[in-house]
Each structure stands twice: as structure tokens, then as C-alpha cells.
């Protein structure tokens, strides 16, 4: 059964009609054109679909669209301000923190969730924050460097 859900997506209020049990991941991609959010395992294990829900990193494959009414959702698209990448995104580019790039938006959103809570995280906190994200190209050292690069800045 379809329902209508209204929430804030990347700072703008949106209303979407979708099957009530559809995942936030599929709704973002198929109904709202947000394709930075990647389907990987769709079982909460790979982190490729990570978004911020009320400022906290969550795997959007495990969120039912029926649970999103009134919430704030931010995706990698929403980190771009006036056409300018977020410093965290810039750092991923500068450090070459991806190869195929499929996991990258998920890593960026997990890192963003951490930096919003702890602007100056230590290495352990970084590792913990991205523990739920998998990069099969193995770009982990550069991903960690990118996050470290913007640690301590304002977010």
C-alpha cells in the first residue's frame, strides 16, 4: 500500500508517495533521484547506503520510508553548498580516497556523522565510525587520511 511521507531532504521539504514498507534507500534512488546513495548488500553490512538521519549516520537500506515522516535526511548531494564541495568531500578528492568510488558516498556520510558529533576525533574514533563501511578496492588508508585532514576544522 502506498503512503505519502513528508520529510526534509538535503534542507528542502519533500513529499513522496511510496509503498509503506519500502526502504529509504530505494525511495531516495527510485522516487527522489538521489543516486549517491548506493545499494550494496541491502542488509546493513556494507555501509554504501549510509545517510544522515537527524545528524546521525544510518544505513538507509534498514530504514522503512514509513519511519521517516518529519525527519531530516542528508545525503552526499546535500553536503554541497552553492556548487562547492564540503571540505570533507574535497579531502576525499585531494587524498584520492577512492578507486571505483562505489563506497565513497557511504564513507563520506559516516565520516560526516562522526565529525558532527566530534569535530576532532582520534584515530580509534575514526576507525569505529567507518567500521560499518566496506571498501573492496581497499582504499582504507587514504580514506582515513582524508578524514584526518579535516579533523579539527569546523563542520
Amino acid at each position, binding site marked *: 500500500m502506498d503512503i505519502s511521507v513528508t520529510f526534509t531532504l538535503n534542507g528542502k521539504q519533500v513529499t513522496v508517495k511510496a*509503498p509503506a514498507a519500502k526502504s529509504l534507500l530505494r525511495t531516495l534512488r527510485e522516487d527522489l533521484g538521489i543516486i549517491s546513495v548506493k545499494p550494496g548488500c541491502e542488509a*546493513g553490512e556494507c555501509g554504501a547506503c549510509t545517510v544522515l538521519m537527524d545528524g546521525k549516520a544510518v544505513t538507509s537500506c534498514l530504514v522503512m520510508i514509513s*519511519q521517516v515522516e518529519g525527519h531530516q535526511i542528508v545525503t552526499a548531494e546535500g553536503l554541497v553548498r552553492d556548487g562547492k564541495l564540503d571540505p570533507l568531500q574535497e579531502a576525499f578528492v585531494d587524498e584520492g580516497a577512492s578507486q571505483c568510488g562505489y563506497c565513497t558516498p557511504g564513507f563520506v556520510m559516516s565520516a560526516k556523522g562522526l565529525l558532527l558529533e566530534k569535530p576532532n576525533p582520534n584515530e580509534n574514533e575514526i576507525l569505529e565510525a567507518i567500521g560499518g563501511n566496506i571498501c573492496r578496492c581497499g582504499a582504507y588508508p587514504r580514506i582515513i587520511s582524508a578524514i584526518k585532514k579535516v579533523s579539527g576544522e569546523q563542520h
Partner: protein
Amino acid sequence: MNYSHYIVHSPQSLNEALGILKEKSSEVRIVSGGTDIMVLIKDDLVKEKELLNLSYLNELKYIREDEGTVKIGALTTYRELEKSDTMNLNAPILVDACKTIGATQIQNLGTLAGNLGNASPAGDSIPPLYVLNANVKLQSAESERVIPVSEFFLGPRKTKRDPNEIITEIAVEKEKPGTYYFFKKLGLREANAISLVSVACMADLSEDKKITTIKLALGAVAPTVIRAVKSEKLATGRQLDLNLVDEIARSVSEEISPITDIRGSAEYRRRAAYGLVYEGLYEVLMGTAKRVSSGLEGVY
């Protein structure tokens, strides 16, 4: 993946939710954080056509303390428990366990009551709840009752919750300052791994290292989480030394009844249980195990 045939009820209050359950309890599946059910929905493994989404019941999101207990609202997430001063001070063993569940993204969604209601023998918040003598509060439209967590589970995926009831609160006993505790689990990797074996232990030692009380609970080694009662008895009142560490760990590995499944064999689980208990008690013996703090400055 067929999302379209589900009806999702999203009540705005507990009363409304209980009313819905009263009408059609056996046809409705309760959804809390959603981290387990979304995986099942993807694979078309949910037989119920109607879902009861509790995520808007803010009245069930709280952590309150009174004299001897901490009361946790059913919809409190793992991450909220981890960040709570009250929890870190009074039930740090539960905090440690929540930190090992899934990864940050899961901890931001999953709830304590969801872990209980889901009733997996490998649910990582459950062994700590056993050693904290937790009580589970169940409410229906007509009544409410409280069941000790040790009596709540009937088997894998089976609990004493009636179809018209909702888990609304979990109450845990406050740990005494100075008590040694550890939560250890073995999974196939550190993040997002389901436990092969998990152990929660709380122990009080006298000045000369005699065990005055000890509680040991294990996950993923029996149809439900279990207390290792025989091993606790064997240990109580005795001098903790290397021999006793070995004896207790051996006893635990014999007391459990693990099975062989895709994650590991029964024999492997017995050895792993031995190893986890040995490691934890060795740290207690050496004085390097964690102890319940008497003030917040000792927590962080």
C-alpha cells in the same frame, strides 16, 4: 523484494499502538528500529501483511533512574544507551555490549526492546541483561506485567510476549561500584558480525581475591541466552588464581549446549567460550579488568 503488499500502521501514541494490537494482534508484526525486519522484507521472508511501526512513540524513549534500578524506555537506541551518563555509571557492561552490536549505523537505529523481541540467541544486549537481573515490562490495552529477562525467552525467536503485548520498558539493577565486569564476544570480524559466542560477567572479589559473587551469562551457545549457574556455584567463595580461572572456563565450556551452524561448529564454540571466559577472568585476576566506577570522572 516486494514492498508493495504491506500495510504499515504508524501510531503516534502507545495507547493508539495498543489499540491496534488489540484489534488484530496475530496478523501484525511489530517493528521497532527496523534493522532486522528490513533484511527479512527484502528477502520476502515476513509472513505478516501488516506491520506496526513504533518509531514515533517518543514516550518510549527515555533513561530514568531510581534508587536501585535504571529504567530504559523500549525505543531507546543502542547508541543512546552508549552516550548516557546514567548507563555508563550504573550499567557499563550493557554499554560495552551495545558498542559491539553491528556498527555505528546500526547502533543509531536498533533498540534494546527490538533486540529482546527479536529473541535471537546471539542478541548481544541480552547476556548483560541477564547479569543485571533485568525485568521486561509488557503492556497490552488491558493490562501490564513484568517478567524477569531470565524467564522471558522460550527459544530462538520465541518469547513469553503475547501477540497483543508491546515491550515498553526494561529495568536493570544498578551495578555496585568496584564490581569487576566484562563483556566479550567472538565474531567473524569486529564490525557487523553476529556473535559465535558472547560472555557477560560481573564478579565481586574480597580483598584477598576470594570470589564473593559471580554472574556469568552466555549468548549463542544454547536455544536462549543462559546463565552458567553450575559454574557460578563452583566459583563462589573460592580463591581466584590461575587454576580457578582455568577450572571455571572449563566448567562453562562443558555447561553450555552449542550447535553447529554456518558461523561455526559446536566444538569451536565450546573452545571459544573457554577462551573468552579464561581471558576475562584472567584480567580480573590481574586487576586489569574494568570495574564499576563510583563517579563519572572514572567513566570516561
